[in-house]
């Protein structure tokens, strides 16, 4: 299970990283393994305001649908359109081409509340 050191994590298995003015969000390697074959991603609406911990996208495997929660509050400024045709990128490259959306954080201090890679590793191993 891959857990890059430079990212921050949520209990609900999202990752986030600040890149300039925005934050990029995706699901973790652990989450994609649990989901198995991702076959559909319902992306968030552009421009939508979301709260930290709020539902904002849906990832579906053959078997089930699971919600993606936003790690931070803010405005959705970009979504990964490639996932419309290649949802399997979430399985093959969850920390790269399989990113899900970008958010303009309204409260960057929220980042401090998220888990580090070491903390997330313990959570994932315990679940």
């Amino acid at each position: 299970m891959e857990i890059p050191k430079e990212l921050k994590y949520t209990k609900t298995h999202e990752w986030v990283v600040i890149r300039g003015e925005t934050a990029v969000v995706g699901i973790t390697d652990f989450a994609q393994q649990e989901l198995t074959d991702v076959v559909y991603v319902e992306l968030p609406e552009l421009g939508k305001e979301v709260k930290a911990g709020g539902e904002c996208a849906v990832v579906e495997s053959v078997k089930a649908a699971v919600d993606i929660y936003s790690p931070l509050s803010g405005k959705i400024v970009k979504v990964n359109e490639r996932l419309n045709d290649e949802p399997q990128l979430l399985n093959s490259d969850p920390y790269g081409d399989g990113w899900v959306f970008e958010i303009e954080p309204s409260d960057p201090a929220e980042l401090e509340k998220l888990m580090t890679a070491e903390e997330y590793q313990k959570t994932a191993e315990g679940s």
Partner: protein
Amino acid sequence: MSQDVPLLHSPLDAFHREHGARMIEFAGWEMPLQFSGIVTEHLAVRRAAGLFDISHMGQIRVSGKTALQDLQRIVTKDLAPAKPGRAVYSLLCNEEGGILDDIIVYRMAENEFFIIVNAVNATKDFEWLKENSSKTTELENLSTSRALFAMQGPNSSAIVGQLTSQPLSDLRYFRFRSDMLRGFPVILARTGYTGEDGFEISVESDDAVDLWNCLLEAGKPFELKLLGLGARDTLRLEMAYSLYGMEISESVSPFEAGLQKAVSLKKTDFIGRDAIIRRGKESRRTLIGLELLNRSIPRPHFRVKSGAGVVGKVTSGTMSPSLGRGIALAFVEKKFSEIGTVLDVEIRGVNRCAIVVRTPFWTPRVYTRSSAAAKRSASPGSPES
């Protein structure tokens, strides 16, 4: 099932865990959900071959001088014309015409039958059979003393053929025989739940692991894959085969579910007959196939709508691995059941466009069952369980 009842395990349980199965609880059993992934496993059955452990399914032997007479009153299908060696897809219904289970009855001899039932109903069915049988009919519940495997896919006969000395060309669709596979006594049936060519193999639990390994070894040159219940569900759904608990249950009568072919109305006396006819006439709903126009995925219980009105409910839905599109079976009001009708499925609050399509959703390329295929109606159903 109450929580303090321990889960049942297949004789292959240790094998599954050693081979990376993700296990799930199903009908009181712990069985593999998947090995390499549902999509990969699904496509292996459509293109090559796959092996399922379906030992959770119930197996019941019925014998004695009144066996035929009793079963004729209990099951919906006429068993009299079925010669020994034939398998018959049938239903068990209650007096109200509600479906207790869908089953396959193997006619072993004049008065000897072997019945495969759904795991979730195995105990209920056994009790029902007992309750409705004469003292001279003997019933044996073999559900935990026998294992059951399904070898499915176009390469199935090439694989199974290596293990038997008798030609498989003699074993046609929905026929079975007692056979020896590498020396292990089995009941070998040309049946399945995937739409592909294939076999269901009943074997003594003590021989299960050895026979399983022989099948895997024989399958190596034929791209045989291990399969879990996840792929079993997507494969049956592409064929629009009913699953007990989803499309059919005690609150559904056979004609509503499109299971006309599993009922012999010519047989004048069997449990539920009058109610089945009456409910068939009275019922305002029918089971249909829906194909989604975008990539969103319908799931059980999602509402089916026409304009603002709710006209039905999804019973099973998935992303079809063969078609790459969302498909569903749904009960809808009859007037919305015409092929080509445009409806909506409400998915997380959004109406997604869906079309009523002919079923099965998928036509297997290697379809060796010309006679059976020609007889199959366009409505959803299930030739097996």
